[in-house]
């Protein structure tokens, strides 16, 4: 059994709107299947599951906004929870902890406000038991000691059910609320590293013993970028949601038997639309770019590439092809950028924990601007291994889905190098801002006819300015120069790309 949780799908994402379930209870699912659509500040993303199994229960109904890490569904994997450090074991262990404490809370409290009795039959081990909450209150009646305790533990008193006289929150209530928050097992070094890399530990899956988060997990999380926190800030684990019971009316048709949803009414706000969405994306981009410029000592190089050979070859190729198989200049440019990254691996990877870690393959983040503003960088995985037609097809597919908001989580993460192209915008040169923790960004300006020396004479050729912004902590100018030179050389032999 495994939990399927709200993933973190982008820099600074701390909550997401479950837009739609793509599966129903009882469906067989496989690792990598898209099973839900989650709307983030940036886009609607199809989210994949990490386990093979059967959908056992859907815990959150569509239209609900929940914090990252909240359980959305239970996947029955047919494997008993074991203490082996398999990837799935962390959430399993967490669920059990929660259930145990939840059970105690349930037993020791009266029936809930809506009169539901505690289940008569023994609850299954993974059953998310309701903790219940009092109706919303304008002001919470608490004493100074309790308020102090809650502050110490970063608890929101409004989310705690009071069992004292007149619904007062007692010291015991605070302690119980604290106890229901699963403790994330993290090694001291991993905790330190998470602070340095601004990774939110609550969202990192541990690979160590009993699901302990180790340094390698933090680095992986930093590399894929989804759980990056704005620095500095209190870890979100310090103020997790208090599990409460959603109104019975909120039960969704996809759920055969209405189960209490573990949601947070306070945050069940409508999805940001229109300007809100744009503003949210602006904020996310602002945080990431500010971090980049704050932490990364950029250096910049530029060179002009003669594209005459490449474009002539492209034209010949395209005239022999149906429209659907035509290549854009972007295809050879991206392929050359990827191949050059393979040949100059010092620029393909991540800066983590004070040192460079080379990427496992060349995965190109491709900046795609969105109609109405903002941008996404879907990832061309293994771009150096794709033939031009396959690369073109993948690019078209990603761009279309980026704009219609149907990207998968894995298609937004894992880039080892980003390419930005302002070919369309009519500017000659773009000096980019590196996407941390990557160490370089390649830019292409517009392809324009320019005068240049050809075989000792003045000629007019289609030229593009290729630029490189690179992290001076990870590489020096000579490496960057080698990259651009390699890129130029590759583009002179388009037939070999």
């Amino acid at each position, binding site marked *: 059994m495994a939990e399927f949780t709200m993933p973190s799908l982008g820099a600074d994402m701390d909550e997401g709107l479950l837009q739609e379930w793509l599966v129903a209870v009882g469906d067989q699912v496989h690792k990598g299947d898209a099973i839900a659509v989650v709307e983030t500040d940036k886009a609607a993303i199809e989210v994949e599951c990490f386990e093979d199994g059967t959908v056992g229960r859907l815990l959150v109904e569509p239209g609900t906004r929940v914090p990252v890490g909240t359980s959305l569904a239970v996947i029955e994997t047919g494997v008993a929870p074991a203490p082996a450090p398999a990837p799935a074991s962390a959430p399993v262990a967490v669920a059990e902890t929660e259930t145990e404490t939840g059970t105690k809370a349930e037993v020791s409290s009266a029936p809930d406000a809506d009169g539901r009795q505690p289940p008569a039959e023994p609850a299954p081990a993974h059953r998310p038991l309701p903790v219940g909450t009092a109706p919303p209150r304008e002001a919470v009646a608490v004493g100074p000691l309790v308020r102090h305790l809650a502050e110490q533990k970063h608890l929101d008193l409004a989310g705690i059910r009071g069992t004292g006289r007149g619904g007062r929150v007692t010291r015991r209530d605070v302690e119980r609320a604290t106890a229901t928050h699963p403790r994330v097992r993290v090694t001291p070094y991993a905790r330190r590293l998470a602070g340095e890399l601004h990774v939110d530990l609550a969202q990192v899956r541990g690979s160590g013993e009993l699901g302990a988060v180790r340094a390698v997990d933090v680095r992986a999380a930093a590399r894929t970028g989804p759980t990056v926190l704005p620095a500095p800030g209190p870890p979100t684990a310090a103020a997790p949601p208090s599990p409460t019971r959603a109104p019975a009316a909120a039960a969704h048709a996809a759920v055969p038997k209405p189960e209490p949803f573990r949601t947070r009414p306070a945050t069940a706000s409508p999805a940001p639309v229109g300007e809100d969405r744009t503003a949210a994306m602006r904020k996310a981009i602002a945080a990431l770019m500010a971090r980049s410029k704050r932490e990364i000592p950029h250096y910049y190089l530029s060179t002009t590439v003669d594209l005459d050979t490449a474009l002539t070859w492209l034209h010949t190729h*395209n*005239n022999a092809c149906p*429209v*659907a198989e*035509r290549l*854009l*200049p972007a295809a050879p440019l991206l392929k050359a950028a990827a191949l050059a990254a393979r040949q100059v691996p010092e620029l393909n990877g991540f800066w983590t924990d004070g040192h460079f870690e080379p990427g496992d393959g060349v995965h190109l983040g491709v900046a795609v601007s969105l*109609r109405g503003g903002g941008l996404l960088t879907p990832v061309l995985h293994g771009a150096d291994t794709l033939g031009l037609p396959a690369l073109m097809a993948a*690019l078209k597919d990603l761009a*279309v889905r980026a704009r219609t908001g149907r990207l998968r989580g894995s298609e937004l993460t894992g880039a080892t190098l980003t390419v930005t192209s302002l070919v369309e915008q009519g500017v000659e040169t773009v000096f980019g801002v590196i996407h941390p923790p990557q160490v370089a960004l390649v830019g292409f300006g517009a392809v324009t006819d320019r005068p240049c020396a050809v075989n000792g004479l003045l000629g007019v050729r289609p030229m593009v300015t290729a630029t490189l912004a690179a992290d001076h902590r990870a590489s020096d100018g000579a490496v960057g120069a080698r990259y651009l030179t390699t890129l130029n050389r590759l583009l002179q032999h388009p037939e070999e790309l």
Partner: protein
Amino acid sequence: MTYEQALDLVKTSLTRIVPDADFTALGPTDKFRDRLELDSLDFLQFVETLAELGGCRLDEDDYPRLVTLDGSTRLVAERAA
């Protein structure tokens, strides 16, 4: 194919890419790539759709004519016959 039919195909093709395209504000000789903010991928998609709907071949050499509604419509009307 009549001009009207061809224009309909052109608009349909553009609407597939820009669902909320406002053709009332787009003159027949306006460059729609700029007005509708089509990038090269969008444009390729447009050409692909137009060729498919019109049942005709459109080559790269035709691209200079595919910049306005009027130019595109005339080209498709000729080719689709």
